[in-house]
């Protein structure tokens, strides 16, 4: 009966997980790339959501972001091990060169879009985003350098992030 689930299982990529999962940034970027398919993306978000609901309050509150990322990592892993065994010449072989190329191209495109989006920001907003994300400066340090309040720094940062996020919309989460 669950025609949708079966249909999407057939379309799943027949490859082992190529991520090292040492850094969440890579993991998330990878996750989003895999989720270019709207149906898959919705199913995964759905499942992540259900797991969040099942989490005990205490554990979730401790560090909600880390908890969500753990869920995402587990899901991605389960996603791959759930592939039927005959769908893949399973020999623990390294991911194919094709995949690496395809993935790198997608990642490169993603970074290009981010840089474009950054260039379109106002100078102050761009300064805030780069100082915080690239240079690792605190809100206070940025505020001091630019002569604005820490809360203003936060606002610039949120605005810059939305712009970058929307510029990458079809990469990181499909558009409606």
């Amino acid at each position: 009966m669950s025609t949708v689930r079966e249909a999407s299982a057939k379309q799943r990529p027949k490859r082992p997980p190529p991520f090292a999962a040492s850094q969440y940034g890579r993991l998330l970027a990878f996750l989003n790339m895999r989720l270019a398919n709207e149906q898959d993306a919705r199913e995964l978000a759905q499942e992540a959501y259900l797991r969040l609901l099942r989490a005990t309050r205490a554990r979730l509150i401790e560090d909600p972001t880390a908890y969500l990322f753990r869920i995402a990592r587990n899901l991605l892993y389960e996603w791959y091990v759930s592939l039927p065994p005959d769908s893949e010449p399973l020999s623990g072989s390294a991911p194919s060169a094709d995949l690496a190329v395809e993935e790198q191209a997608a990642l490169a495109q993603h970074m290009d879009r981010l840089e474009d989006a950054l260039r379109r920001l106002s100078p102050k907003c761009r300064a805030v985003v780069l100082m915080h994300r690239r240079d690792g400066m605190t809100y206070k340090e940025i505020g001091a350098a630019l002569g604005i309040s820490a809360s203003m720094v936060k606002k610039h940062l949120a605005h810059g992030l939305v712009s970058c996020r929307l510029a990458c919309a079809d990469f990181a989460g499909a558009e409606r």
Partner: protein
Amino acid sequence: MSRRRELLAAEAAQWLTALEGADAARREQFAQWLRTSPEHVREFLAAAAVWDSLPGVSAQPSAAALVRLASRSDNVVALEGAHPGAANPKAERLGRWRWGWAAAAAAAALALAAALRLLAPVAAPPTMDYVTEVGEQLSVSLADGSMITLNTRSALRVAYSEARRDVYMGGGEALFEVAEDSARPFRVFADSALIEAVGTRFNVRKRPGEVAVTVLEGAVDVSPGRSGANAAAIQPPPAVRVVADQQARAAEGKVVLVDRDASAVIAWRERRLVFDALPVRDVLAEFDRYQAQPVVIADPAIAALPISGVFRSDDRESFLQFLDQMGIAEHSRRPDGVILLSAMERR
């Protein structure tokens, strides 16, 4: 990019910037936000991916150059301050609208309580309102360890005091997982019905004119309250004890007890809908709870056909395809977006 998505993107970005060194209360707010809907989870993951890949950007000016650029722009770009703020009022408005389920439902709940003479003349305890929109689900952890999960398009008010734990259901459906506390009864008010529990799990679905209570664990007492045939009765009708895998339906001042597979009733938590020989019109009504746009049955002959199966509640399309594949009915989309269901043409 839909409006709703833009708002979500703005909210996700605000959370990402606010989480650094956030205290427990703030983290709890964030967890609550995250648990609003799968779309929230998805948007946050997508935003976090961007956030985490930003450190990798190259070909951008150095920090010193950025300071120069930013300060130079101060004299020229006066409008710039409008940008970051622009997202905020919208998000706030959305928040107010979402959580501000207020006057009507609250008044109804209070009137209800007053009618039942259950509202003691003491200071009203602090209350919390929870509302879900079409397609949303929401889990709420309460201070006593109890947990309430709201299904789509539902509204309820939680009023905890030292003496009791009261919940008023404005509408929709919710699963209650009640932590044991014999000193403080846990009660749910829905229309004129009163549901009383101690340490148990049960599901309440409120429909116009009927309240259905299904027990998964333990037992609850369901009183129909004064309505329907009993509206003028001096003594309210007695409570009916409901145990696991039983369902009590309170309507018109009466409670009817039937056996019911409780796990099928709460399949909505996994976004599944389980139908056992249910007529097409009722199946569609179930789906409509999760969709903004209803399906119109153009052919009355289809409406009564029984359907059995398990479907995803957020995927009405697959049900329509199922009807098509089974040769039961075909659907078409009118220009105004309404989906018409009509009998299969005989070949």
